[in-house]
C-alpha cells in the first residue's frame, strides 16, 4: 500500500517536472517556489523531499468547486474630508437657484464597498470674460458667445448642463486689457443675473491684481459663496481671506504639485478662514504632459487626508481644461490618429476620469462631450445601482 502511494506520487511528480522543465530556466524559480521543491539537481534527489513536503497539487484533483468565502477588505480611516458649500440660495443669503456641497468623503475615491462619497463630484464650465485663443474642437461649440461672457454662461448652463460656471476674469491681466476691479465686478454681476448656478471667480494669475479684483468682486457678490480661484503662496493671504470671510466666500488654495507646499499654504489660510471655506488644487497637468504626477499627488493627498492629516482634508479641484495643453488634443495629426474633433475631447475625458479616481471633487472643464461623459460616469458611479453581469455573460460570442 505504502509502496503504491509512493509510485503514484512519483508519476505525478514526474508529470509536473517534465512540464516545468519545458519552461525556460527563468521561469523555473517562479514555479518551484509554489511547489516547494528544489529542482536543481534533478529528479532522484528531489523525490524524497517532495514526498515529505507533499504539496497540495499532488493530491487528488477536485471534482466539484471548492467553496471559498469573500469578505470585503474594509479599512478604517481616522480622517474625513470637510464639506464645502458653494453658492447660496435665498435662505443661505444669496440668489442662487441652489447651492452645491462637495467633499465629506470618508473613504478613498469610489471605494463603494466602504463608504460611497456623500456628495457627487461636480463640473464647472469655463467661461472667459474676453476672447481668447481656443483649440478648434472646443471653439466650434462656443463660436457665437466668445466675446460675451453672459451669453457664454447661459449657453454653458442651458445647453451643456453646467453645475457651476467658472468665470475667468482674464481681461484684468495687466498684460491683456488691465480691466479695472470695478469693471470686472460688473461682469460678475451680469453673469450672476443671467444664470442661477454657483460661480467660481477665476483670476488672471497675477497675485496683486487678482487680489484687488477678488476684494471688489467679493463685495459686490456678498453672500453668494463664490469660490475665489485662486489664492497662492505669493499673494497677500491675510487680505484675500479677509475678503472671503467678510462676504462669505470660499477660496481655492492653489499649489504647484507639491504636498508640502499644499499643507503649508492651507496652514497659513487656517489663521484667517475656517476649513469649511477652503478647497485645494494641487495643479492639473494634461494626459501625457505630467498627468502621472498630478494624479499621484492628488491620490496621496486624499489618502493622507483619510489617514488623518488635518492639513489636506479639503475637497480637491482640478483645472481639467489643462488637458488641452497636450498637442495630441488639439493638433492635426496623421489620419491614423483620427480627427481632433474626437481626439481632443477624449483627451480631456481621459484626463478627467483619471483624476476622478484620484479624488477630485470639482472639475473645471471645457468641451461639452467631455463634460457630458464625465457627468454620466459620475452619475453611474454614485447611482448605487447594482451591476448587471447577465448583460456581459456572453460577451465572448457577441457579434459586433
Amino acid at each position: 500500500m505504502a509502496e503504491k502511494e509512493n509510485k503514484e506520487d512519483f508519476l505525478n511528480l514526474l508529470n509536473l517536472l517534465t512540464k516545468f522543465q519545458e519552461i525556460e530556466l527563468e521561469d523555473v524559480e517562479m514555479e518551484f517556489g509554489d511547489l516547494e521543491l528544489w529542482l536543481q539537481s534533478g529528479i532522484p534527489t528531489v523525490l524524497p523531499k517532495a514526498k515529505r513536503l507533499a504539496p497540495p497539487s499532488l493530491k487528488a484533483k477536485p471534482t466539484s468547486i471548492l467553496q471559498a468565502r469573500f469578505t470585503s477588505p474594509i479599512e478604517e480611516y481616522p480622517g474625513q474630508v470637510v464639506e464645502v458649500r458653494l453658492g447660496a440660495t435665498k435662505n443661505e443669503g444669496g440668489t442662487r437657484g441652489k447651492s452645491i456641497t462637495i467633499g465629506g468623503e470618508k473613504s478613498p475615491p469610489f471605494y463603494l464597498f466602504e463608504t460611497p462619497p456623500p456628495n457627487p463630484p461636480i463640473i464647472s464650465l469655463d467661461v472667459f470674460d474676453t476672447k481668447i485663443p481656443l483649440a478648434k474642437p472646443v471653439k466650434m461649440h462656443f463660436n457665437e458667445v466668445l466675446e460675451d461672457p453672459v451669453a457664454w454662461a447661459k449657453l454653458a448652463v442651458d445647453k451643456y448642463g453646467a453645475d457651476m460656471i467658472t468665470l475667468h476674469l482674464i481681461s484684468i491681466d495687466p498684460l491683456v486689457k488691465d480691466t479695472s476691479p470695478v469693471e470686472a465686478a460688473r461682469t460678475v454681476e451680469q453673469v450672476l443675473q443671467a444664470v442661477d448656478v454657483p460661480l467660481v471667480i477665476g483670476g488672471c494669475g497675477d497675485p496683486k491684481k487678482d487680489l484687488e479684483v477678488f476684494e471688489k468682486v467679493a463685495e459686490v457678490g456678498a453672500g453668494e459663496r463664490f469660490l475665489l480661484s485662486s489664492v497662492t503662496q505669493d499673494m497677500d493671504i491675510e487680505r484675500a481671506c479677509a475678503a472671503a470671510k467678510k462676504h462669505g466666500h470660499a477660496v481655492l488654495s492653489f499649489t504647484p504639485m507639491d504636498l508640502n507646499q499644499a499643507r503649508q499654504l492651507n496652514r497659513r489660510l487656517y489663521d484667517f478662514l475656517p476649513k469649511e471655506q477652503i478647497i485645494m488644487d494641487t495643479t492639473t497637468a494634461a494626459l501625457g504632459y505630467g498627468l502621472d504626477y498630478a494624479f499621484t499627488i492628488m491620490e496621496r493627498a486624499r489618502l493622507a487626508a483619510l489617514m488623518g492629516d488635518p492639513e489636506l482634508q479639503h475637497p480637491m479641484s482640478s483645472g481639467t481644461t489643462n488637458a488641452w495643453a497636450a498637442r495630441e488634443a488639439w493638433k492635426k495629426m496623421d489620419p491614423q490618429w483620427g480627427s481632433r474633433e474626437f481626439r481632443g475631447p477624449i483627451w480631456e475625458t481621459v484626463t478627467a476620469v483619471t483624476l476622478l479616481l484620484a479624488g477630485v471633487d470639482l472639475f473645471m472643464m471645457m468641451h461639452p462631450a467631455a463634460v457630458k461623459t464625465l457627468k454620466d460616469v459620475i452619475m453611474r458611479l454614485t447611482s448605487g445601482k447594482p451591476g448587471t453581469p447577465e448583460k456581459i455573460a456572453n460577451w465572448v460570442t457577441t457579434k459586433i
Partner: protein
Amino acid sequence: MAEKEVKKPSIKEISPIDVYMLLPKTNCKECGEENCMAFATKLVNRELALEQCPPLLKKENEKAYKQLWEMLKPPIKEISIGAEKQTIKVGGKYVMYRHEFTYTNPTAIAIDITDEMSDEEVMERIKKTQEFSYIYIGNTLKLNMIAIRSTSNDPDKFKTTVKKVVENTTLPLILCSFDSKVLEAGLMVAPKARPLIYAATKDNWKDMAELALMYNCPLAIFAPNNIKLLRSLSKTLLEYGVKNLVLDPGTMAGEGIGDAINNFTMIRRAATKKGDELLGFPLIGTPITAWLENKDSPAEVAQWNEAYLAAILIDRYADLLILHSTEGWVLLPNVVLRQNIYTDPRKPVAVKPGMRAFGTPHENSPVMFTTNFALTYYTVASDIENAGVDSYLLVVDSEGIAVDCAVAGRKLTADKVAEAIKEAKIEEKVKHKKLIIPGKAARLSGEIEEASGWEVMVGPRDSSDIPKFLHEKWNQS
C-alpha cells in the same frame, strides 16, 4: 493554503537588513556589488534579482533562497503569456498605489479578432495591431496581443482562424470561448503558442483546467460581479494544479461601471493589503463590452465609451485589456495613459538643466529657453531641429514641470531664468542680449528683462511654431 490570514509584509515594509540576514554575507562581490548589504538594498528596490547572487543558488543555501523568494515575491503573481521568446509578462505588482512602488508590467492591450471575420478583416486587424506605434518621450508605445473570439461556436471555424493568426503574427494570444471543445480546436493548431485561455467559468472549469494543464497555458477565470465565485474557482483551479491564473470579475460597462470598479478595487486591495493569495493574480478587463451596451448606436459611440472605459481600467489596476476599436483616437490616449501610470512615480520625468547647442551656433545665433520637463524639452528640441537654425536652448530647472504649470505654480520665475543665463555663461557665447521665451511664459517677460538685463522676445505658445518664428522674426531682427 491561502485561506490563512497571515499578513505578508508589503514591499515597503521589507528592510534591506531582513534581506541581508538571509544572504550568504561573504561579501564575495560575485554579484557585481560591493558587498551583500549593497546587494540587499538593490534587491529590495527591485533593481536586482535574487538569482544574481551565485552563492545563494548553491544547494547549501537552498533554505535561505526559498525564504528570500517568499519574502520578495510580489503579492500579484507575474504570469507569462505567449510562445517562448515572445512572451509578455502581466501582473507581478507589488503594491496597490503607484506612489508606493513603481508599477511593474504595463497593462497589456489586446485587440480582438473573431472566427467569423473575413480573411481580409483578420489580416487587416493583425496588421493594425502589429504596426501600431507612437513615439512618446523616447519610448515606442505599442499594442501587445491579439484576442481571438469564437463567435461561431464552431470548432472548425475557430481552428481555421487561430491557424491563420498564428501564421501571421508572433504576438501573444488570448483564445476566447466558453466552450472547451472550441478552445481545444484552437489550441491544437497552436500547440506551442501558450495563449491565455479565456475563460474558466462555474460551468466549464474542469475541462478548461485540463486544457490549461495539457497545453501548459495560463487560464483566465470569468465570474462577472461575483468575487466569491471567483475566489472559489481560483481555489479549485489551484488545487487542480493550474498555477497561472488571470482574474476577470467582469467589465460591466454602462450602469454597472460602479460595481466593475468596485470589484477591481476590492480584489487588488485584498491581494496587496490583506495577503489574499487566491486573488493574487493579474486582472483582465474587457472594455470591448462597451459595444454590447451601445449596440444600436453608431460605432463612434461604442468607440468613445470603450476609450474611457479602458482608461478607467488602466487607472484601476487592470493588468490586461481586450479592446475592439482600432481607431487611433481611441488607442492613443490609452497607451499614453498607460505610459504615464507606469513610470516611476517619485519624480517627474526631467532632463538636466543647462545649455544645449543645436547645429553650430555662433555669436549671432538665437537663444531660447524652456523648462526641464522631459516631454517639453524633447518636443522643443525636435522642433528646433526641424527649424534647421543654428541656435542655443537654455534648459531652466522648473523641477520637471511643464511651462504653463511651472509659471502658474512659480516653479519657473524670472530669477531662475536670470540665474540660468548667468550660469550657462551665454554672454560669452553670443554678442546680442536677446532671449526668446516660450509664449506660455509671456507673463514673465517684464520681470525677466529686469532680472537678467536681457531683452525679451515672446516666442510662440506652441513650439511647433518655432521654425516659423525663427525664420520670420529672428532673421529680421
